[in-house]
Structure formats: C-alpha cells, structure tokens
C-alpha cells in the first residue's frame, strides 16, 4: 500500500472513528469467520436477486404507467396496432419495444423474480434438511417463512401489473377466490377491486403494494434475518475440528467479501445471460386483458402453481343452505394447502423441539441422512407440494405427454395422499441405508483399488481407514437421547394421552442406526490401531452382530 493511499485511508478512518467509536466493532466484523459450503450460498442467491430486483425495478418504474385507462396502441409492435388496451399494458409494450434496454430490464426483472423465489425454496429446504432451524435460530426461521410468503405474493402482484391476458386471468381467479370466502367474501372483493371486476383500481393498488409496501417489509425482514445470522454466527457442516462451540472457516476480510462479491457478479451474470437467450413473459403474444378472452394452457408463474393445481384437483363440493353458499370447492383449495404449508413450516422448529426435548444450542448441522425421520417428512412435504404443482400444469402435461386430460386430475386426486406416504417411506429407508454405508466405511475403511493375491491364490482388495477429515464427517451422527422425564412432578404428564403421543413421536423422530463401537478405528476386528492398509476378506461378518431395530441410544 503506498503511503498516500495509506494516509488517506488512515485520515478518513480516524475522522469517522472520532465520531463513531468504530475501531473495535469494525475489527470484529472484519475478522468474523464464515464457514465454507456450497449450500450456504443459496440464501445469498435470494439476497442478490432481491437487489437485482430493486435495481431493475427502479428502472421499470421510470417508464411504467400503472393506469387502467383505455388507450389505442400505435407503437412499434405492429400486430397490436389499433387494439384497445389499458395504459399499463401499452406502457409495458413501450418499455419492451420503444425503450432501449427496456426489454432486457423487463426480462432481467422477471428472471430475477423467478430465481428469487426458487432460491428461497432451495435455501429453505437446505436449512430444513440440515436442521439449521434448531435453537438458537428458530426466530430466524420464522422470519424466513414470512419472507417466503411475502416473496411469492410480491411476484404475483408484479406479474399482474402489465394487465395482459394471462396475468389478468389470474386476477379474475383471485376475484373468484375472494368471492367464495364466507360472510366477508363479496366485501373483500369489492374493496380490493374498488367495485366489480375488473374496475379501474386494481392495477394502481397492486402497483403501490408491489413497489413500496412489500419491498419495505422485505428490506426490514432481510436486515433482521442477516443481523441474526451475523450475531449468532452461521452454522457449519460437520467436519474435523468443527464443534458446537466454534466456527471454522475463512475471515470476512478479505476472503468472504471477495467470494460474496464474486457470487453477486455470477448471479447477475447468469440472470443477464438468461435474459439474453431465454424469452420470458412475452406479453405482446398474450394480448391485453379482456374478460371475454382466455387461452388454453393458462398458468400462473411457477411459485403460484401449487395453488392452481389445488384448484384444479378439488372436487366440486359446495353446500347451499338458508340462502347462503359455502363454496368449499374454491376457498378450501385456495386456503387449505397454503395454510398447511406455511403453518407447518413456521411451527416445525417448535414441534421438533417439543418432540425431541432437545434444548441445547446447535451450531453444527445435521447431515440429512442422520435425521432420517425429519428428512423423510421433508420429502413428503416436497412431494405434496410437487403433485399440486404438476397438476397446475396438467393441460400442458396432457397435451405434450399425450395423457388424457381428465386422467391427470383423477391421478392427482389419489397421488396427493399416496405420494407423500410413499415418499416418506422411501426416503427414510434411503437415509437409514446411507447410515449403514457410513458405518461400513468407518469400520472397514475405504477401498484402495489395490488387489493383492494371497498365498492360497485368493484375491483380496486392500482397504485403508478413512482420513481424519472424513471420519469426523462420518461419525457426526449426533446422540439423540430419549426424552427424560424432567423433574419428578412431570412424570404423570408423560402418562397422559399427549405425553404418550410425544413419547411415540419421539421414538420415531430419533430413529437412527447407532455408530459402530470403537468409533471406526481399525478394520472392524477391534484392534483399534490403524497403521497401514490391511486385507479384508469377503464374507466378513458384521462385528456388532445383527443391527438393532430401533436406535435411540448413543453411538460410541
């Protein structure tokens, strides 16, 4: 560093420190350790996509006109010349064809929105499957679930702004859903739309919510989310020297700053690349919204697909009594899957804590295979979501995979129940099988590929014990103690129905294959000394005998 730069930096630093007392705090910040794992970058995709959305969104607000006033189009897209449309739609066409870079900005904005929600889902799944929501991070998890809900709401309102035929149909469905709500439905619909559908108010109102209210909420929640993550320090994956009392990795300055900077550029670059080569939301093809028009193959953006699927697969249940209609066929599919999903996600950390009775701080993540019931439940949830998502595209599936249309819905109606059960069972077996494989590696070591011939002519493959680094990972299967009866006076509670339920849930949730005795040193014959590769003959019996059926005890 040259002296002049040093002087300027030093001078500025002193100026600020005189006023802010920042040296110690900033130094702590610069030395903060960030653990390294590729899956920890998923949340940052969401963060940087949000920033891209803010930047491109601001550009779009300079040109977009959120008005439903009728105009006649005479711009550069000639197939729509002379067509009546709202000003919102016309201004979107102008942005696409008459503002330089406008189409690129629209496409980046929309692809970034797709990536934003997709990254939130991937990040959510990563946090769930690694158990990173456990104490002390339950609050951060709940903040995340709230942001997830805000994110797809924001996307829904955003893609409805151009007032095209596809998104307008979505608003029509929204009106139908609101109308179906008992007692207050008609009032909600008339207040949101400013009267009957479509009215003249919905687009300007969605605009305010989309560019001001929800982004403000998201900014506040993102700040809280990041602050909590900083304050509590990030979790880390199991590894050598990784404990619940430390965090191992590289410091913020200069390493993490450089890596996260690179990541931002990559995300922006990939989004820009997609916006160059993959056309998205070509509203000029859809045409302006008209309540008398509809297209085959109308779907919302992917993150609303599960609600669309629920609407499609639900039977036509309804009940008319006393002059009132209970439109179960609409408000149940619109509210129940969404309610189950969001509520289930939000309460899961607390539910798991109640079941396991585990009140310790957790800073080392679980490998998903080491929490087989949780992972299996997660996959059941993913399957539940995925079947609804597929059903949302059922006419596209029918058309392109040549499956009869009604058959897709019939299949979905059964698969929504059977699928998650099958997924639970299959995932659990896979997790337990992977645990056994880990045990095998710990006990018998890694195959070296070296074949040796024994004097009697038999060929054997040499194994060597796993490296220290790998052993730390493989043996990271945590103890999962059964719930102890806390304090003598609580024992009667454990005998009641709720207590019994908790007990059985606890046994299911903590099911695990115990770690091998001797913790894997040696070749499984109990010698405990791992010096050099030793031969393991075929047909070696398991040193522990038959595996216990129900593993809630501790490993070694």
């Amino acid at each position: 560093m040259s002296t002049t730069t040093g002087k300027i930096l030093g001078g500025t630093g002193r100026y600020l420190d005189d006023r802010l007392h920042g040296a110690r705090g900033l130094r702590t910040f610069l030395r903060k350790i960030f653990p390294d794992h590729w899956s920890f970058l998923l949340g940052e995709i969401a963060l940087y996509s949000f920033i891209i959305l803010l930047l491109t969104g601001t550009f779009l607000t300079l040109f977009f006109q959120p008005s439903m006033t009728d105009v006649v189009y005479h711009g550069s897209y000639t197939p729509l010349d002379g067509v009546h449309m709202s000003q919102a739609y016309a201004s979107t066409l102008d942005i696409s064809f008459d503002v330089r870079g406008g189409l690129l900005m629209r496409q980046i904005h929309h692809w970034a929105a797709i990536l934003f929600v997709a990254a939130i889902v991937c990040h959510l799944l990563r946090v769930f499957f690694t158990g990173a929501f456990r104490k002390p991070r339950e609050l951060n998890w709940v903040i995340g679930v709230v942001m997830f809900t805000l994110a797809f709401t924001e996307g829904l309102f955003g893609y409805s702004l151009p007032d095209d035929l596809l998104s307008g149909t979505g608003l029509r469905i929204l009106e139908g859903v609101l109308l179906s709500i008992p007692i207050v439905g008609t009032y909600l619909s008339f207040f949101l739309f400013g009267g009957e559908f479509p009215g003249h108010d919905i687009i300007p109102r969605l605009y305010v919510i989309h560019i001001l209210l929800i982004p403000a909420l998201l900014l506040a929640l993102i700040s809280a989310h990041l602050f909590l993550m900083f304050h509590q320090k990030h979790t880390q994956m199991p590894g050598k020297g990784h404990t619940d009392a430390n965090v191992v990795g590289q410091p913020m300055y200069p390493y993490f700053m450089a890596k996260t900077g690179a990541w931002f550029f990559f995300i922006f670059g990939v989004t820009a690349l997609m916006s160059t080569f993959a056309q998205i939301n070509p509203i000029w093809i859809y045409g302006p919204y008209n309540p008398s028009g509809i297209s085959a193959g109308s779907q919302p953006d992917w993150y609303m697909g599960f609600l669309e699927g629920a609407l499609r697969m639900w039977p036509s249940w309804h009940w008319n009594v006393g002059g009132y209609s209970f439109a179960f066929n609409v408000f149940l599919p619109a509210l129940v899957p969404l309610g189950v999903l969001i509520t289930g996600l939000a309460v899961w950390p607390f539910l798991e804590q109640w079941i396991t009775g585990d009140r310790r701080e957790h800073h080392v993540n679980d490998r998903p295979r080491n929490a087989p019931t949780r992972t299996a439940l997660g996959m059941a949830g993913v399957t539940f979501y995925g079947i609804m998502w597929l059903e949302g595209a059922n006419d596209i599936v029918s058309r392109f995979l040549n499956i009869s249309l009604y058959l897709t819905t019939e299949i979905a109606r059964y698969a929504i129940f059977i699928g998650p059960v099958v997924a639970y069972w299959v995932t659990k077996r896979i997790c337990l099988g992977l645990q056994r494989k880990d045990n095998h590696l710990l006990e018998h070591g890694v195959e070296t590929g070296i074949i040796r011939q024994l004097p009697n002519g038999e060929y054997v493959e040499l194994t060597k014990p796993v490296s220290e680094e790998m052993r730390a990972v493989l043996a990271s299967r945590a103890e999962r103690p059964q719930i102890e009866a806390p304090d003598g006076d609580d024992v009667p509670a454990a005998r009641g129905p709720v207590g019994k339920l908790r007990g059985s849930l606890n046994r299911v949730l903590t099911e695990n294959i115990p770690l091998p005795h001797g913790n894997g040193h040696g070749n499984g014959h109990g010698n405990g000394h791992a010096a050099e590769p030793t031969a393991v003959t075929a047909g070696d019996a398991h040193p522990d005998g038959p595996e216990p059926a129900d593993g809630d005890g501790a490993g070694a």
Partner: protein
Amino acid sequence: MSWITALRRRPAAGYAVVLLGLVTIGVGYGALTTPGSPASAATPGTVSPQTLAAGQELFVKTCATCHGMNAQGTSLAPSLVGVGAAAVDFQMSTGRMPGKDIGPEMDRKPVTFTPAQIHAIADYVASLGGGPTIPSAAQVSTAGANTALGQSLFITDCAQCHNFDGAGGALTYGKFAPALTESTPTQIYEAMLTGPEAMPVFSDTTITPAQKRDIIDYITRLRAEPNPGGFSLGRIGPVTEGLVGFIGGIGVLVFLALWITMKRRES
C-alpha cells in the same frame, strides 16, 4: 500425463462434464422448440368432367372403405355428403386424411396426394351434396386486413382451444386442438368454415370472409414475429419458464457455488 488427463483427474471434472451436458441439452431444446415456418397455400383448380371422373376413381380407391362407396358414411367414418370441397381440401392437404390410426384425434401427417388429386377428390365429394367451396387465393389474401379486429376475434373465439400463440391445447378424452404453426391461410380459412372434428363451425354469415381474413392476418403475423427476448421456449408460458429457471438458473448457479467453495488442492 497429458494436460487433458490431468484435468480429468480433478474433482471438479465430473461436475464440469455434467454441466456441459445440461447446457448442451438446454440450448439444443431451446433452439429446436421454436415454432416452424408455415407452408405455402394451395390453389383451387377448376371443375371439369375429367376432374370429376379422376376424383371419383381416387375416392373409390382411397376413401370409400371407411366413408362408403357414395360417401354416405359407415360405422367407421361419417358421411361426407354436404361437407363441401373445403372440408375435403382441409383434411387431405393437412395429411389428416386418408386416416390411419382411428383414435380420438386425427393428427396432421405428411401429405400423400398432389394438390391436383386432392382438388379432384374434393370436387367429386362436393358434387355429391354441395357444401362450402375451397376459398380462392383472393379470399385468403391478407392485404389490407384489419389486424386489430383479427386479434380481438382470435382471442375471443380461437385462443381458448388453440392458445394465444396458436400452440394448441388439450381437449377432453385424449383430443387436442392442434398447433397452428404449419397451417396455410387456406387451411385456416377452411377449418373455420367447416369445423373439422371437434372444432365448432364459424360460417361466413357469423364470421364474415373479411373477418376470417383479419384472423388469418393476425395468426400469420404473430407466428412470423421473431422472438426478441431470446429463444421462445416453445411460447408455452410460465410452465417452461419455471423449468428453465430451476434447471438452467439454479442448476448453473449450484455448479458455480461448488466452484467458489471447493477445497483447494494443496500445491
């Protein structure tokens, strides 16, 4: 060890190959699913006794097995009396007829007859019971058409089956409304006029010939438009966009994340 072999031994090599494969498939799919270009229109011939005779001969050889010797229909196929030359021309010029597999839907297939032969058969069938005639070139010419009206009519009466881009759509029991990417202006006119299979009829008294030309104008302009935003992804809509977003976007980013956080080789 050559440098290729050295690279192949790196832990990242596997990921790189998978990434290359995914990108190749993705780009290839994107390039291949762009809509095709329309075929040229057929021109109607004039009716003469020789044409009728030739038409009858072809009809007996090709069509009578299913449609009956006098086109009166059998259990296999409907009567053709009164369907008109336009219907025959539509079905045969798109290759749907002669029908092969009897299923819920007759698909467009390669055409096995020359335009002259098709017109001969069409004229013969028309002679049996009348019906809509094959439109002339002038009738399907889109010069001076009102594209805005065509757009309005297309969205209101066609898009619910054929999709706003003419990509086609699902109907019930295995039927589907076909894509309009390969239909000539004449075929579009004839389809509206005759209502083939499950499609409703849009007669000239309901949607006038001029309005039909407006619709044809909108369709042909729409599908001729290039895709300014990149590959069209089939112009199917949010479903393909979501797939590309996850597989292309998140997929590629995961590979990049692996690269950034990979443990370094101790040198």
